[in-house]
């Protein structure tokens, strides 16, 4: 597997009127990984994805895709990217097959048998109109459309928003399966921590247009503890928010806490809540 990152964003800024949607965002997505992009509603996730798709343009900052710095996401580049949006604005009168036929006209690499295989795998009815499909099925159809042209990168913008837990779990399982089969890079944005933990190798936590944390989930969790009891915090430890404290993993191992102080491990949800609600940042080494 190539070491060139599939995506590298550096100091990306984008403003909508008075709203600074992205404020110097930097991140790196390695090839072949599923990258979980976590953030609250309005944190800047969709803006980031739309910049990557070339639907929007950045005010400043650099975008690198597949090792190439791009000023504008051109059509040939876009052909290497699959996109599953939060809202599936399909033509309501088209069936899944008709949608496939339509979308195939834009991708020279379109693989019709693969599309049909994915539809069967995802249990999407072939001849039913898009307007008659449930939200979950529409998301699955979006996934099949995104993967059928064999893209190098798939961008998923909260694809499971609005789905019930079962449909969400099914979708995520299928996503992991397809990504594993293909070796495709997936950039998966969500505000649902569980599913990111389920599918992602690494995560980025964005808040108010800035990256608060980026790295492997295990590494993140190894730096965080929930501290309770009477204690005076040593210098190398930082309160992220409330009782969530961050320090190097090694320090947690070495530290001898006084009696009555409990340093409990946290899960990704606790970490996300802590980072998403504060400005305090201390990236782990």
């Amino acid at each position: 597997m190539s070491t060139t990152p599939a995506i590298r964003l550096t100091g990306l800024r984008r403003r909508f009127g008075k709203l600074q949607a992205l404020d110097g965002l930097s991140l790196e997505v390695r090839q072949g990984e599923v990258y979980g992009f976590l953030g609250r509603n309005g944190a800047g996730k969709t803006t980031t994805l739309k910049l990557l798709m070339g639907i929007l343009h950045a005010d400043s900052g650099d975008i690198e895709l597949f090792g190439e710095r791009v000023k504008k996401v051109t059509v040939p580049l876009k052909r290497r990217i699959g996109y599953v949006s939060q809202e599936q604005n399909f033509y309501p009168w088209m069936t899944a097959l008709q949608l496939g036929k339509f979308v195939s006209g834009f991708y020279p690499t379109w693989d019709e048998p693969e599309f049909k295989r994915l539809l069967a795998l995802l249990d999407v009815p072939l001849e039913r109109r898009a307007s008659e499909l449930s939200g979950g099925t529409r998301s699955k159809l979006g996934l099949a459309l995104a993967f059928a042209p064999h893209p190098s990168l798939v961008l998923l913008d909260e694809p499971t928003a609005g789905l019930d837990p079962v449909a969400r779990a099914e979708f995520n399982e299928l996503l992991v399966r397809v990504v594993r089969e293909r070796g495709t890079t997936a950039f998966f944005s969500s505000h649902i921590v569980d599913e990111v933990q389920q599918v992602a190798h690494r995560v980025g936590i964005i808040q108010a247009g800035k990256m608060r944390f980026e790295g492997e989930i295990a590494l993140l969790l190894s730096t965080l503890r929930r501290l309770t009891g009477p204690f005076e915090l040593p210098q190398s430890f930082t309160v992220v928010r409330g009782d969530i404290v961050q320090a190097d993993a090694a320090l947690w191992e070495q530290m001898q806490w006084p009696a009555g102080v409990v340093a409990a491990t946290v899960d990704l949800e606790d970490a996300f809540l802590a980072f998403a609600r504060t400005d305090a940042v201390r990236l782990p080494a």
Partner: protein
Amino acid sequence: MTRALIRKELREHLWLFLALMALHALTLMGLLSQARDDGSVFTALQQFTVSMGVLGVLVANSRLVVREYSGRTQLFLETLPVTRLRILTVKLLLGFATVLLPVAIVLGICALAGQGREPITPRYLAILALRSGVFLLTFHALGFLAGMLGRYRYVFWAGCFYLMSVVMKKESFDNIPLFRLVDQRMAFERNVFPLLDLGVMTAVAILCLAAAFALGLMQEGGLAANLARKMSHREKVFFGGLLLIIIVIESTVDERRKRPRFDLAAATRSTAGATFVGIATTDDEDAPEAAMAVGTALAEDLESLRIWLDLRELPPVFVVPDSSLDPSQFVRAELEDTDGVVMKAGLSDPAFDGRWFRTTAVDEVLAWYSRNRSRREAVSWFTAGLSGWWVDRLEPDPRLRLRAAAAGPVTREELRDWLTTREKLGPCLAQAVEVGLVEVVKEQNPDGFQALATRLLGGERPGQDFRASLFRKSVEVDLDQVVKGFAKRVAADRLAFAEDLAKRQQVTTQLDAKVVGRGSGIELHHAVQSDGGDPVDYTVRYATLKPWAGEKLTLLSFSTQGSGVLPQVFPRGTRLFSSFDIDEPALGCVVRHGAQRQELQ
């Protein structure tokens, strides 16, 4: 990519385009058959461009642009590897092709149909193609821009039509370059390219397209997407209110926009007090004495009426002699930019009836003063009668009572539907009845008669805006009493004029419809027989009734003796008004007989 986009559009809208094509074909058949009578087969192209071309533009842009954006499916397109510019360009060109193609086909069909019948040169065809092509391009560009405006497209179209109406108040329809390209002359201009109009409209089209593309591409397509959202309740209220305000302002401004008073330098003026009547003359000749006498009498009628009804102003009144007019026909000229009452009449004709003319002129002045409210059907019997009575009051014409007796009593319903009753009676008897009715009202209400007439027609002149029309004045008389009083008067007059009435020639009129050709046309055979068997001179007056025809008709006439056939074949189903006018010396006027409205089958 482009092919995929085109395939998608065709698949989505094919049924509608096919339906439109079917409509085009039907329309073309109708237009081609009509074009044979219009002097050139290419008039069908002109009419097709104006009607179906415009319809095609509206349909194409509504389907290709508005539907995409209001359905938010453009967001799906944007996720595909295709640029916004290409998406918009495909929509623009595809829409234009669907509009242009039928017109190109029609041009070809017209060229084939006109071969051997009219001179068709490549230059002529190029002129036609350019005229219709640029017209459609401009209209399509406007439609495309309107489509990109999303929920404000109706506001945009309303603005365009308002602007057009403002321009057309100053200019005629044919003076607007866009419409001049496809006006009546289009089919007959064989040599000259209207380069200026073509250039201007192409520039307008380019500007519209630039604006449309700017809307579609600005803010990464976000502007067009936002515009395509549905109007909020607040916006609907705002634009509804704005429309209402514009209507109120327009009507108020229109009311205040005083047009200059009509004036005719070459006119001899007859004055009475503050009132004058001008008789138009030629440069080196004064008006004849008889015409001056009519002018003087009319000026006196108007001045006395002004004082009696408390009219605050009178219009300038001019009479233009026109010897080509039937002496019993008086025409009021339409003044576009000036204000006044200008009448045309055959003043020098020996058969000219000055008293009748004065009655008509007084009626026109009252209509001017009341802004045509005197013509409302519910009061028209009174206002018309008042005009006649005013002219007649000093020297009553005994023939009026005789004619009213000949007409007979009227019912309350006939009073209510006076325009219909008048149509049946004809002008001579109707005027006599109107004057009689007014005299009955005066007799029944001797002290309040003037006050009643003043309340209805006099005093302050009503405004022209819509508020004034909401408050309608009405005649405060007991119609049952008037009808009874008039019946009593008719009965008495019938006894008094029994001898004169007995002299009336009794006639039978007949109008038969006969199917001709293969059953599609109808000929009308007419005949009038007197009871004594003498030949009767008569005039058939007739008019075809359009669906929107009101009570006032422009009648054609055909004079003959005994019997004949109207010089026109009517299609089946034609609605027709017809009557027989017969000169009755016993009554001293032409009396209408057998008036009827019918559908020819």
